[in-house]
């Protein structure tokens, strides 16, 4: 059941991840942002690699995959327009925990993680403000994982 390919280009500065940042903090972040593009099926990151970036997805769809026998490649989540890909850069050992690739063509904003981290360390107010934006993202993903643990559609 292929997905309809809808491209909706967004102003990333209005997205939930950053919209509550002050104009000054947004400007700091904007200086570390690069517009980027991935073709459908293009790899974005690989499990175990150094997490040197995170991404705000403007359009398209990113699939997160885990690999392990006996199941092989299992799709565990999708990240879509307005959502953020990656928080491994925040936490030691700063390595990706999954593979991610573009399922549909992706337009994204890439952030240099080391520079963002350095800014957060230099400016604790900025650091706290950005963490306040990331924690709800992490909480949403955790809640989604918990719901799936319930295996709610399975009837014995």
């Amino acid at each position: 059941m292929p997905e309809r390919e809808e491209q909706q280009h967004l102003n990333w500065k209005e997205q939930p991840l950053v919209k509550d940042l002050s104009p000054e903090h947004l400007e700091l972040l904007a200086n570390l942002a690069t517009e980027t593009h991935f073709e459908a099926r293009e790899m974005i990151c690989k499990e175990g690699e150094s997490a040197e970036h995170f991404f705000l997805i403007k359009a398209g769809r990113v699939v997160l995959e885990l690999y392990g026998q006996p199941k092989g490649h299992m799709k565990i989540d999708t990240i879509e327009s307005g959502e953020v890909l990656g928080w491994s850069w925040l936490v030691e050992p700063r390595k990706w925990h999954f593979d991610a690739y573009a399922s549909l063509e992706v337009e994204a904003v890439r952030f240099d993680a080391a520079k963002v981290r350095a800014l957060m360390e230099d400016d604790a107010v900025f650091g706290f403000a950005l963490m306040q934006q990331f924690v709800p993202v992490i909480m949403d993903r955790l809640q989604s994982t918990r719901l799936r643990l319930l295996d709610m559609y399975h009837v014995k």
Partner: protein
Amino acid sequence: MLSELQRTELPADPMLPRPYRIQRVRRELPGTFTWELAPANGDLPSSFEPGQFNMVYVGGIGEIPVSISGDPANPEKMIHTIRAVGQLTRAMETFGRHTVVGLRGPFGTPWPVDEIRGRDVVLVSGGLGLAPLRPAFYHLLQEREAYNRIILLYGARDPDEILYRDEIKQWRRHLDLDVEVTVDSALGRWRGHVGVVPELIKRVDFDPERTTGLICGPEVMMKYSAIALINRGVAAENLYVSMERNMKCAVGFCGHCQLGPHFVCKDGPVFRYDHIKSAFSVREL
């Protein structure tokens, strides 16, 4: 709502099953099948409203409530989708065409499809929960001009467990509908959404102030879907859920399906969410 067919009155005794013959059996998924039934004695079929259910009786084995999953404008085909999970439903799974079973009904409260004309409608379903919502969706399609946005969100365990798969593919071709499917996880060539169905609610476009949500699926799915809709700004009084309990008499006499102060068979199965939401947090209820 009712077809041009003459409405047939329920038997005077609602406890008395009417004979229906299986006209067609469709294997939907492993262990899940759909019956198309018609009156066995030449009677006109009973009309029904979307969201209602019948009691399906199999002589010598028992009787169970089953939501009607067909088109309310086409009641001559009484459609039931059933999952084989117990002694009775496993026996039913073996029945072929021409088998006669008993039906009592239709019973229960419907989805409020007429009251919500002019509004955005978000239908959220999961697993077999698409079956009781399908009659409402058929109605919205037939009366498309009477509604604003129509959005169907459906969640399944994996791509092999998507109910009514061919029909969903057809619905997705409509340019005036948003139909999105997500799975809990996927192997192979799946290119769609992966994640739980409440997550889709964040990703679709509707006007919360003029939206009604119709939700059907496992209770935990309904609870978190309702929360996601409320977080988007939809008022709790504009959300409806279809509850499932162990209906026996289906007319509010026996109390088997009691849920707090409600009898699900008579006061439900479709409830306004704010009337029933306390039940979602009561354990063992």
